């Protein structure tokens, strides 16, 4: 398998040595696990993907053949989609032929179900201009995962990341009103969920439930979620799971293309527009390519069925640029993105102390009436997030790949309270009461070994350093510096019908916190270190072609965050007095999950069942004595650690009832229990059921793939809550009716996608348990959303 040209000879020898070491290390481990050796080829894999032209429009009728086994192949449908089943593992050569295009050739090492995207060149004279973009699979194959795709992805456009992911089974959102939403995976959120933006760990002040991810979801054309402990690949914090946002690969064909989204919605009179332009100047498949992208968003006061929510508008401006260079095995790219948002905080949600909160709770609607306005007054949050990323990868002659990624991100979060600070200084009055600046530098080096002798895997080193500077008028969290380093290895072994996966990682974190003594005003520091080993092991088993069973046991860890360690004082967003504990230890999770996926002709579905045991789970426990401050009485909470367990079930089913009628259902059930306190966990998502029916046609006049869809979302009342911990009982369950319709149309290289959705069509009054604003107001009412996507 090693083709060594002279120039690569030295590299190849080195490569072989690395290969041998890897194999020598891993075989004994895997052999212990698998006394059974099954010989012969495994021909149970599936290769699916899409065929597009240079403008990324689907190519119908393209013939995809496996050259190494001419009996297998498929023809793309009108969506450009193909699926080839019964593909054997090992090296496969695929050809993609369509009339009017140059034949494309793809080499792929199959060890799992794979995806390939063919971008065809229209010019028959440019013979070698053939481009194949293999889409990366999740690095942990045996951990449950899900993805926003197709129509779901289009319908999520314009929503915040948290809102967009809510439609996936197993996911919920923790919200502070209509504009601030954070993803919840299997009941966990904030610093128990990791977000990878373009391969980089998103680092902001993610500990706060009102601190939404500082990401423009339009940068990504692939939004996927790993559900379960995934620290082995992604490091600390991946206790609940990981959200991955990946852009498309840069264009490989000469020319300029792009797309424009225009989205408008009635509630909040929100408008969003996002545009992407990309191109490639050179004729060769190698060479330079670029992309620029930008998003603008504006919303005013949102409206519940009965009243407006005062000061809930938002403004957002984001942009990104990528430039890449490719030459033979080498790929280099640079990426820069800026994100800025200004978010109004609903005026009715301010509580100076517990008496204010009780007064707000006793009202059935906010004390002050409002009207529609785009103005954003105090209080508001203003966030800037800049990310610079450099990556370089080299594919060796043996198909092994070494990839380096380095990034710097700067997160600046300013929060302006509803009241101006008491001061005579005009300058100080303009300053935010709370200001955090977090700068993170990170680097990762990953080697992906080529698939050989049924083995495949990744090995890597990762490190980062963070500096946090707090500049607020009122103290909230201290300054700190952290250094984190880790090393990991994941190895897979694939047999007929079965794949085994095993991985391990070690991480070390050093953290020094800088504080000022409030009396002596002297600066002092405290140093903490954390180290953790994590492991993962899993199996994929395909007893029959349509059924895939996946099982995984994985561990994850998280160091206590700076607020849990050192916060001391009033937390304004919920009128509580919080006390950190600097002796907190790392949280450690052991997550086990089983997934069964069925992909039949008419019935498709997936069920995940999981149990996540979290040792040293950090949460706030109420203290017997409230704290009396000058500004009133506050319930006191102290951060503490207990052993808890979260179990649950996610399921999604699609059934083609008739030729043009599909029924779909999704279920998300979560149960969280504290074994130490022998009580339920607070803020676990209530049971959620979504049932819908979609009518779709292949073509109707000029419309392609027109559809009409109706869906009911039912959320039950959360009854499993610890008594006496919450300020108000969980709100009643609710049932919403949503409807949508849309189509796509194509004229030459121009494509238009259109969708109109009516959300909460019955204008139902409801409050959601995971929305912190449920204490103060109803959720928003009826909302019509129109989305247009134009691609060229």
């Amino acid at each position: 398998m090693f083709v060594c040209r002279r120039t690569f000879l030295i590299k190849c020898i080195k490569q072989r040595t690395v290969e041998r070491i890897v194999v020598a290390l891993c075989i004994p481990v895997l052999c212990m696990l698998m006394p059974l050796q099954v010989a012969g080829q495994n021909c149970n894999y599936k290769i699916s993907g899409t065929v597009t032209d240079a403008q990324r429009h689907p190519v119908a009728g393209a013939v995809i053949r496996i050259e190494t086994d001419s009996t297998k192949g498929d023809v793309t449908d009108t969506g450009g989609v193909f699926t080839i089943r019964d593909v054997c593992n090992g090296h496969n050569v695929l050809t993609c032929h369509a009339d009017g295009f140059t034949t494309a050739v793809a080499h792929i090492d199959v060890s799992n179900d794979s995806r390939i995207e063919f971008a065809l060149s229209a010019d028959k004279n440019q013979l070698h201009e053939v481009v194949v973009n293999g889409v990366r699979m999740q690095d942990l194959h045996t951990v449950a995962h899900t993805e926003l795709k197709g129509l779901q992805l289009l319908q999520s456009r314009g929503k915040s990341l948290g809102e967009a992911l809510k439609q996936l089974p197993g996911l919920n959102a923790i919200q502070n009103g209509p504009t601030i939403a954070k993803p919840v995976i299997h009941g966990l959120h904030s610093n128990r969920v990791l977000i990878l933006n373009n391969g980089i760990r998103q680092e902001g002040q993610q500990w706060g439930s009102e601190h939404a991810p500082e990401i423009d979801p339009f940068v990504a054309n692939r939004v996927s979620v790993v559900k379960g402990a995934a620290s082995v690949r992604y490091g600390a914090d991946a206790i609940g799971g990981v959200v991955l946002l990946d852009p498309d690969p840069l264009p490989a064909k000469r020319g300029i293309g792009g797309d424009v989204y225009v989205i408008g919605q009635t509630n909040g009179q929100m408008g969003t527009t996002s545009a992407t332009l990309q191109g490639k100047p050179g004729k060769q498949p190698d060479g330079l390519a670029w992309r620029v992208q930008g998003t603008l968003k504006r919303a005013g006061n949102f409206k519940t069925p009965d009243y407006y929510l005062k000061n809930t508008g938002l403004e957002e401006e984001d942009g990104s640029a990528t430039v890449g260079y490719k030459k033979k095995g080498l790929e280099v790219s640079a990426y820069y993105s800026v994100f800025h948002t200004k978010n109004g905080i609903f005026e009715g949600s301010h509580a100076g102390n517990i008496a204010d909160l009780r007064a707000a709770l006793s009202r059935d609607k906010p004390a002050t009436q409002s009207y529609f306005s785009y103005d954003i007054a105090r209080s508001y949050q203003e966030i800037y997030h800049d990310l610079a990323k450099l990556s370089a990868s080299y594919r060796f002659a043996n198909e092994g790949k070494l990839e380096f990624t380095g990034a710097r991100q700067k997160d600046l979060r300013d929060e302006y309270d509803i009241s101006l600070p008491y001061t005579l200084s005009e300058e100080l009055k303009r300053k935010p009461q709370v200001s955090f600046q977090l700068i993170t530098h990170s680097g990762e080096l990953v080697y992906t070994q080529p698939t050989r002798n049924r083995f495949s895997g990744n090995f890597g080193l990762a490190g980062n350093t963070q500096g946090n500077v707090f500049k607020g008028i009122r103290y909230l969290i201290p300054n700190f510096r952290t250094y984190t380093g880790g090393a990991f290895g994941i190895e897979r072994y694939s047999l007929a019908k079965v794949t085994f996966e095993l991985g391990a990682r070690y991480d070390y974190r050093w953290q020094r916190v800088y504080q000022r003594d409030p009396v002596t005003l002297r600066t002092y520091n405290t140093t903490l270190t954390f180290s953790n080993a994590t492991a993962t092991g899993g199996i994929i088993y395909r007893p029959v072609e349509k059924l895939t069973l996946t099982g995984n046991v994985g561990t994850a860890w998280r160091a206590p965050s700076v607020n849990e360690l050192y916060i001391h004082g009033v937390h304004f967003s919920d009128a509580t007095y919080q006390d950190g504990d600097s002796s907190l230890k790392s949280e450690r999770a052991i997550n086990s999950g089983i997934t069964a996926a069925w992909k039949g002709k008419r019935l498709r579905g997936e069920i995940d069942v999981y149990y996540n045991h979290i040792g040293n789970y950090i949460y706030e426990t109420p203290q017997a004595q409230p704290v009396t401050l000058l500004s009133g009485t506050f319930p006191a909470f102290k951060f503490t650690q207990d052993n808890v367990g979260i179990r649950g079930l996610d399921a999604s089913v699609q059934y083609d009832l008739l030729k043009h009628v599909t029924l779909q259902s999704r279920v998300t059930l979560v149960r969280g229990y504290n074994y130490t306190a022998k009580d339920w966990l607070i803020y676990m998502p209530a049971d959620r059921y979504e049932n819908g029916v979609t009518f779709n046609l292949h073509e109707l006049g000029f419309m392609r793939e027109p559809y009409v869809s109706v869906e009911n979302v039912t959320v039950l009342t959360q009854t499993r809550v610890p008594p006496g911990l919450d300020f108000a009982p969980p709100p009643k369950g609710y049932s919403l009716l949503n409807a949508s319709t849309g189509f796509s149309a194509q004229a030459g290289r121009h494509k238009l996608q259109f969708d109109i959705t009516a959300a909460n069509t019955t204008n139902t009054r409801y409050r959601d348990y995971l929305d912190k604003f449920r204490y103060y107001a109803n959720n928003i009412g009826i909302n019509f959303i129109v989305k247009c996507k134009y691609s060229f």
Partner: protein
Amino acid sequence: MKLNRILIAATLVAATALLWTSCKKEEQNVAPPDPENEVITTVRIVATNNADITDTWTATWKDLTPSDGNPDTTNATLKLKKDAVYTVSVLFLDETKTPAGDITAEVSERSNYHLICYEPSAGLNLTVVRTDKDNNSPALELGLKSKFTTGAVGTGRLNVSLHHQPSGKNGTDCSIGSTDADVNFAVQIE
């Protein structure tokens, strides 16, 4: 190959620069409290007997470390004569500074967004009426100045609170907005 090597070298240099520049250790300089910022540490009530202007009583509720919950209430007792009428001023001070910062002036300056509320405990023979107004049109009650009328002998508590009401102020409703100060004075009517 030459180009490859140059590119690899350039990337490595750029990456190293990216990783290690701007590590200015800003975090080691912990920002001291802003001297211009005023924190309410003290609520003071000055009551003057209308029948005898030399008869004044000052009660002070203070907490010099306002985030710790250890108030000093040794002087937070208000002693008033029975069946009397008092003219009362309330002062909000920042006593972490010398001289003390006067937050009362700022409340007065932004009087349209503030309301001071007085709530005697049940059974205490004390009635409080706000006597000053803000600059709203029509003018609404403010409460920096007030009239205390006492009845029979007794003891109880008086809750004094400062509310920030950027919208919805009506001059009487104390449940609107957010609370900046909320303290209890012991009251003895003798």
